[in-house]
């Protein structure tokens, strides 16, 4: 087990190094530079700024310095937020994105498993038809539409009832989290519902279920122990990458609900060519994704006895 984990971690570090290198060179290949602004700078001032940010050195030297710094966990200072460390930006804003992401994934996983099981039980009857229709909607409507619609509906509801049922934006209390996390988790929930349904249907017709029924195992046990537990495995497999995708993909939801998450900084940095923030967030998110995949693989060994971690 430990040997396996170690092996995976080493592979993970190599992956992250690769991400960092590719991003570094791709970023510098993009035309334009972080120092340009609305007002043109004179050559002298520009040269001074390049020295300040180390942009005057050859690209490869910059790369080596950069690798040295990130290996020590220092992502440098943001170009656009001149007095802020990239580490501070990640430290202050990632917990917000993570909170939103965790809640969204919980909504998605719980909803996906429950709806998926329900549609499988009632396959080809009206609950199945209705839910599967909604699932197709949930998968195909992009989050910025769902977010805007969700917010607008809430405003209408608040106006209609005359009381503030839920806040329409901002961040701070549990009430602020409910709508954005539901919106954020909706797509994944729809996807998981479909996955759970097909996996349930496969298991319902499996031999061991028939055997269990023939043996006279009580229906509650058959459903929970034999059907749900086995059907949930594929859901757990996709959960790891989903957590990373949801946590990093909350950009649109963060903007619309005015949530101070990291996703916003990530996207703004790319638009503004803020080199240090681009690198910091990409490497951080890359490492996070790799870590989640490893965690899920290890958990898998415990849940599915057929998998051996060697």
């Amino acid at each position, binding site marked *: 087990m430990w040997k396996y984990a170690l092996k995976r971690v080493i592979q993970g570090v190599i992956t992250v190094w690769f991400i960092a290198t590719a991003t570094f060179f791709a970023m510098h290949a*993009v*035309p*334009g530079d*972080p120092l*340009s*602004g*609305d*007002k*043109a*700078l*004179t050559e*002298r*001032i520009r040269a001074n*700024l390049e020295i300040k940010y180390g942009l005057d050195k050859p690209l490869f030297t910059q790369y080596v310095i950069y690798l040295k710094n990130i290996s020590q966990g220092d992502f440098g200072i943001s170009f656009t*937020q*001149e*007095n*802020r460390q990239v580490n501070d930006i990640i430290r*202050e*804003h990632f*917990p*917000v994105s993570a*909170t939103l992401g965790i*809640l969204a994934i*919980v909504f998605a996983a*719980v909803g996906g498993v*429950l709806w998926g*099981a*329900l549609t499988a*039980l*009632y396959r080809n009857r009206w609950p199945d038809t209705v839910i599967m229709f909604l699932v197709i909607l949930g998968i195909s409507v992009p989050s910025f539409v769902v977010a*805007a619609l969700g*917010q*607008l509906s809430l*405003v209408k509801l608040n*106006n209609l009832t005359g009381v503030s049922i839920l806040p*329409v*934006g*901002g*961040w*701070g*209390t*549990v009430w602020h989290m409910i709508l954005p996390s539901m919106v954020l988790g909706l797509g994944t929930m729809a996807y998981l519902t479909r996955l759970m349904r097909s996996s349930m249907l496969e298991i*319902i017709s499996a031999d061991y279920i*028939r055997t269990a029924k023939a043996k006279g195992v009580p*229906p*509650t046990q058959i*459903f929970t122990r034999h*059907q749900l537990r086995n059907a949930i495995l594929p859901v757990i497999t996709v959960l790891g990458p989903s957590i990373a995708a949801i946590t990093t993909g909350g950009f649109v939801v963060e*903007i*619309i*609900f*005015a*949530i*101070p998450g990291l996703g*916003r*900084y990530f996207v703004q940095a790319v*638009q*503004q*060519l803020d080199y240090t923030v681009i690198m910091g967030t990409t490497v951080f998110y890359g490492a996070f994704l790799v870590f989640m995949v490893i965690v899920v693989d290890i958990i898998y060994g415990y849940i599915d006895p057929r998998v051996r971690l060697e």
Partner: protein
Amino acid sequence: MSNTHITSIDSEDAFAKSAARQLLIYGVGAVFVIGILMMGLQGLASIVGSGTTTADAIDIENQSITIAIRTEPPQLNSTLATDSSSGMILAHVMEGLLRMSMDDQLEPAIATRWEVTDQHATFWLRRDAKWSDGVAITAHDFMFAWKTALLPELGSEYAFLLYAIKNGRAINEGTMPPDSLGVSAPDDFTLVVELERPIAFFDKMVTFQTYLPIREDFYNTTDGKFGADADQMLYSGPFVISNWVHGSSLLLERNPHYWNQQTISLKRIHIGYITSDAGATLNFFKDGKIAYTTLLAENLNDALEQRWHIQREQDGTVFFLEFNHRDERITRNRNLRRAMQLVMDMEELVYKVTKLPGYIPGESLFPGWLQGVNDKFRKEYPVTKLRLNRESALQHLELAKQELGLDKIPEIVLLTGDNPVSNIQSEWTQAVLKRELNIDIKIDKQIFKQRLAKMTSGDFDLVMAGWGPDYDDPLTFGDLFASWNLNNRGRYNNPEMDRLIEIAQLSVDPTTRMEAFAGIQQLAFDDVVLLPMYERGVTYVVHPQLKDVKRRVVGAEVDFTRAYIVPAR
């Protein structure tokens, strides 16, 4: 299907019922678990301190308002600030020597009296003006701030505004030490500025944020983080920032040490939301969460349905098509430029194509709000009316072909931004030039930084550009096409233009200067230096109980310092 259908339908139904019952129990359980999880997350969120304390749009009891801003200020160091969010917040928490009044006239702020001559500007400071820690604001605080802003290693984009002061430019370029700046303080409350050259509007320039004071001993304690956080600042204005949660909110509260308390009635300005989504801010406004929001074209119908009092005006910015005047470009040919000028109907663009409220068709490099000698500049010196004429345009086009030695005008590259409004405008330009002159336009759509890179390197024939004022004088637009101006991205180079600009820069006589600007305006038209497209408009709504919210074209975009709340009718 395998053999499952052998089991009877009855038992299947019973099984499904029992399973559904179990699912229901799990569902209810899950809701409880999520509830508990959310309580836990709430704790986590409060630990990282990223809260937006929810307040209403206006609160008459506490005299507080809540507003939203589009982007987080990168930092609030007045020597570095360039963006509109920073400008807006600085205007509320800082005060300089002079200030613009509610009706856009200069009025005393920290200076009670001032005098500008050809060589000197002298400011007499009030003795009761204090920093937010109670220490008196002195002339030294201004001197320190200006010297700091000019430091070459700081790389301030707005340092050029301080070039009016003697040796400012040399210091900024690193050829002279900061202490050689032409400023002195005969005593703590008198500030004498030696000017590099006569400058007619120096008193207006000192209202700008780059001229705000900074106290040296405090600046030195911030360890390079001046302006990065609420406690890394010292305030001279009517409000202080009592809380700044990055990416989330800022709370401005009344500054107890501000000298002019009786003019301020709001106790608290809560910047509760930071979002660039105009739809979201409109929703916040509808929900009674914010007291002010600007509107975009797509939200306008929605706002009209609500029967709000929608206000519209120009935001001070002029947008134009800028030609590339470099030697190797065909747009260097004046007849070609004239041909384009004669067929482009900017009224059609503004009133029939983009149809955005508040926008007015562009006629001049100088927008309509600029002040002339006694009245608006554009009233005193009206621009030559352009008469569209396709036949004349075609003649000019023929001449251009002859001069260039071409049978057909090759494809012209139009560099433009990537927002929806630019899309419509560039497609319109493309269609008009094709229809009227059979000129093919290739639209080169780029995001901000890439567009800047191409503008700087001259990789375009035509570029859609905008220019907003840095200070309240026609020169902020007038010197744009000087051969030495780095913002002259098309490298227009004409000694006559440079001569007129020099007069406008050096003269202190209002009539002489305005005549020079009129000359620039005429030259820009005659030589087709640019094609003015429109003056940008802005539409916004204010909470009906909030009065005296002031929009400005220079400095703070929107000013709440003198706003007050009235009881509901």
